């Protein structure tokens, strides 16, 4: 049998108001949700029970007459024996111990972060998604044009296989969902982005599905035509030059452009007629003779 007066620290003659005050004072000190501590839970139960016994005029007079609710007393003692948990009331902080909804997901209407900052000057308690991370991957011109597969290792050791689609442009980003920075407080992971930088390949540029190159030809080749060797991203091919090709003419090599097999664009070859480095007097003389014989106007409308 417990003595509620002793527990609440009041005299038997105390008024209900005094008892209430005494209880509140103790409860503030001992409430397990406000005072984390081994003992507060048990002590709080004691004072709560004591208050139940004498907290109202009716209960107090009953208790003073010795008619205390036997059942309630028994129930209480049983629950104390069974475990430290008060049978009647589930303990709030115990519900929050593992995956408490309230303590993990904070109310968005009421800005806890601000309050927290006011008190502690920093905020780190909310659940946040991880940061997105950006990686750079340098690939060859040809890999970008035709596509490829690369395995890269992220800083946290995770290996990812990167499928590079044919025709990817310099600066394009590939997204890997959930492979970025880890989430804070069970927040989702961020995404990893792999930004592609395409290495330059001298003499080659891209225009959509086509690859542009320039091929130098001599004036003789330009006049006579013939087959000349032209580099493509698949290696050299022989390109037929029609006789009398003009400077700046564009010739097409089909299927040597950008894309997946059978759906590739073309390589567009621009003819660049190159003069001899030095004009030999004999060469000049020979050309003069030819020009007398085969003169044409280069400036007439054709």
């Amino acid at each position, binding site marked *: 049998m417990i003595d509620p007066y002793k527990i609440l620290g009041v005299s038997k003659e105390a008024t209900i108001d005094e008892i209430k005050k005494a209880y509140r004072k103790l409860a503030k000190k001992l409430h397990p949700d406000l005072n984390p501590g081994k003992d507060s839970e048990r002590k709080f139960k004691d004072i709560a029970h004591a208050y139940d016994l004498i907290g109202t005029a009716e209960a107090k007079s009953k208790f003073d007459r010795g008619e205390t609710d036997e059942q309630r007393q028994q129930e209480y003692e049983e629950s104390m024996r069974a475990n430290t948990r008060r049978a009647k009331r589930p303990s*709030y902080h115990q519900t929050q111990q593992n995956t408490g909804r309230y303590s993990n997901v*904070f109310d968005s209407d009421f800005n806890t972060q601000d309050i927290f900052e006011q008190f502690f000057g920093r905020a780190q308690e909310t659940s946040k998604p991880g940061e997105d991370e950006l990686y750079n991957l340098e690939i060859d011109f040809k890999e970008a044009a035709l596509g490829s597969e690369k395995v890269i290792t992220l800083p946290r050791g995770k290996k990812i296989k990167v499928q590079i689609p044919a025709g990817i442009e310099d600066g394009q980003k590939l997204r890997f969902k959930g492979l970025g920075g880890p989430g804070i407080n069970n927040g989702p992971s961020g995404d990893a982005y792999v930004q592609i930088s395409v290495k330059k390949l001298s003499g080659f540029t891209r225009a959509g599905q086509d690859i542009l190159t320039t091929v130098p030809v001599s004036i003789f080749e330009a006049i006579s035509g013939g087959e000349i060797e032209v580099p493509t991203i698949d290696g050299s091919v022989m390109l037929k030059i029609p006789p009398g090709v003009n400077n700046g003419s564009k010739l097409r090599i089909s299927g040597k452009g950008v894309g997946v097999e059978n759906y590739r664009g073309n390589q567009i070859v621009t003819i660049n007629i190159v003069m001899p480095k030095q004009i030999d007097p004999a060469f000049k003389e020979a050309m003069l003779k030819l020009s007398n014989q085969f003169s044409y106007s280069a400036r007439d409308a054709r």
Partner: protein
Amino acid sequence: MKLSIRKTIEDVSLAYHIPTEVIIFYIKHEWIYPIDRENLLLDEEDIARIHLINELREDFGVNDDAIPIILHLIDQLNYFRVR
């Protein structure tokens, strides 16, 4: 993954002698977020929190403006306790 109880507001009201209006008042103030908002069902966390709010208001005489502040500080406290 543990399964937790689901109780209607009426059930909780009967079991713990808390008027339904009080529970609805707490929900309206967003002090309580029922686990199942559509059907207004409460779980153990909700019920324990209702008791806590009752204690704060009735036993401690905390006014209603201060309730959400205290609840949030308690939630923070619990959060850090777990960590």
